[in-house]
């Protein structure tokens, strides 16, 4: 909180519109903590799912029910289904998933740095550039070794 106040004053001068006080004001004006300000988010997630559930229930309740054996078969362009869909599929999808996990964690790692960048200064900037170089080296290696090749 203390550091935040220092931060506010700097930003006030820069933009002249009090945007950081604004953020604090929101919490002060409602007299809530930061965590409490997240409550509406949780509410909205629950609400969204409730609405979706209502849609689901309505569709199952209102819809016609004239089921026949033919309707219940898996659709395969009008042919008799061959085997099941529970089969092995291309390793490429796994490669993409693994690469995603690696890179996504690194992206998430950049978010706090990006938000606080102007406060963290040159050391953090150089560290992040080194990090990015390592990241790019990894990407280059993966591409060159054919880890992301689709054919």
């Amino acid at each position, binding site marked *: 909180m203390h550091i935040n106040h220092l931060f506010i004053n700097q*930003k006030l001068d820069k*933009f002249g*519109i009090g*945007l950081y006080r*604004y*953020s604090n004001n*929101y919490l002060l*004006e409602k*007299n*809530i903590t930061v965590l*409490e*300000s997240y*409550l*509406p*988010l949780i*509410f*909205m*997630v629950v*609400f*969204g*799912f409730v*609405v*979706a*559930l209502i*849609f*689901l229930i309505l*569709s199952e309740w*209102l*819809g*016609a029910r*004239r*089921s026949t054996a033919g309707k*219940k*078969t*898996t*659709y*395969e362009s009008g042919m008799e*289904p061959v085997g*099941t*869909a529970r089969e092995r*599929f291309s390793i*490429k*999808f796994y490669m*993409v998933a693994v*690469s*995603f996990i690696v*890179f*996504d964690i690194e*992206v998430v790692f950049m*978010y706090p740095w*990006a938000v*606080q*960048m*102007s406060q963290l200064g040159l050391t953090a*900037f150089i560290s992040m550039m080194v990090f*990015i170089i390592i990241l*790019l080296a990894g990407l280059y290696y993966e*591409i060159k070794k054919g880890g992301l090749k*689709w*054919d």
Partner: protein
Amino acid sequence: MPEIGWILVEAGVKAVFIVILILSAAAVSVYAERRVSAIIQLRLGPNRVGPFGLLQPIADVFKLFWKEDVVPKAADMGFHRLAPVISLGIAIAVYAVIPFAHYIEIGGTKYYFGIAPNVNIGLLYILAMTSVSVYGITLAGWSSNNKYSLFGGLRSSAQMISYELSMGLSLIGVLMITGTLSLNEIVLQQSGWGWNVFVQPLGFIIFLVSSFAETNRTPFDLPEAEPELVGGFNTEYSGMKFGMFFLAEYANMATASAFIVLVYFGGWQIPFDIGLGAGSIALALVQFAWFLAKVIFFILFFIWVRWTVPRFRYDQLMNLGWKVLLPLAILNIVITGVWIMIFG
């Protein structure tokens, strides 16, 4: 505690309005898509139900509700039901942090246009929710126990996670400039014509392309690719369950447009002084209209692109994501960082 209670009541009331807004926006987008595509293809499009066919989407919704819900015997019922709920639920939940206008002040209390536009994690929340929505499509593909669905679901999840990276990275450039994750603050910083798109042109282009891929719109609609996958992940869905995916897709398109407007085009900020006092209802309504106009522009842009640009091949799609957009997004971060370090 009572403050918390009031906040939740306020959120509840707003949520009802917003859900109505989203669903009607999705329905109108569907109508717009059909009309625009008809204009582009020199057809008429829906024009029978109501004036200019305006009531067509409502008729569609009613039709979908009363359609038979056919589920194949081999499907995994639990997940088959869960998948559309995730898709639509997330599409609605995302709107929690979107500010539609600034605020109105009644009796000294400020009522913000949006459920929680001021939370300090707004942008992160949207990205998190976007990642969750992958589950809806993947589960739909898997639980149908149909080969087309499975491939559609797999393609979709691979595509969405690939473009999520460049999407997240392109936003970092904006975050470095704004120094906040709260959407209302990002909008407030873009007063006048100080839109972020002018300082982040590269980031904007990457973000725009990625959001096309994230919303599974052409030219990135491979998960649904009708000619090869007969509809992809939603092959085995019918009735309103199919409608839920449909609604979610259009709601996501609206979200993406709103997000682009908020982050890059100044959101609800009116670039000129119109002489209305802060907090007045009139100003808020003008802001809302201004915001909506920009969002509609982008929705039309999405539609226009869909009916103009052909679909990618899958390897081209993945190459674009991993070998072009991802390095470009990183380059954007480096350029922005160096710029801030030198001139900031």
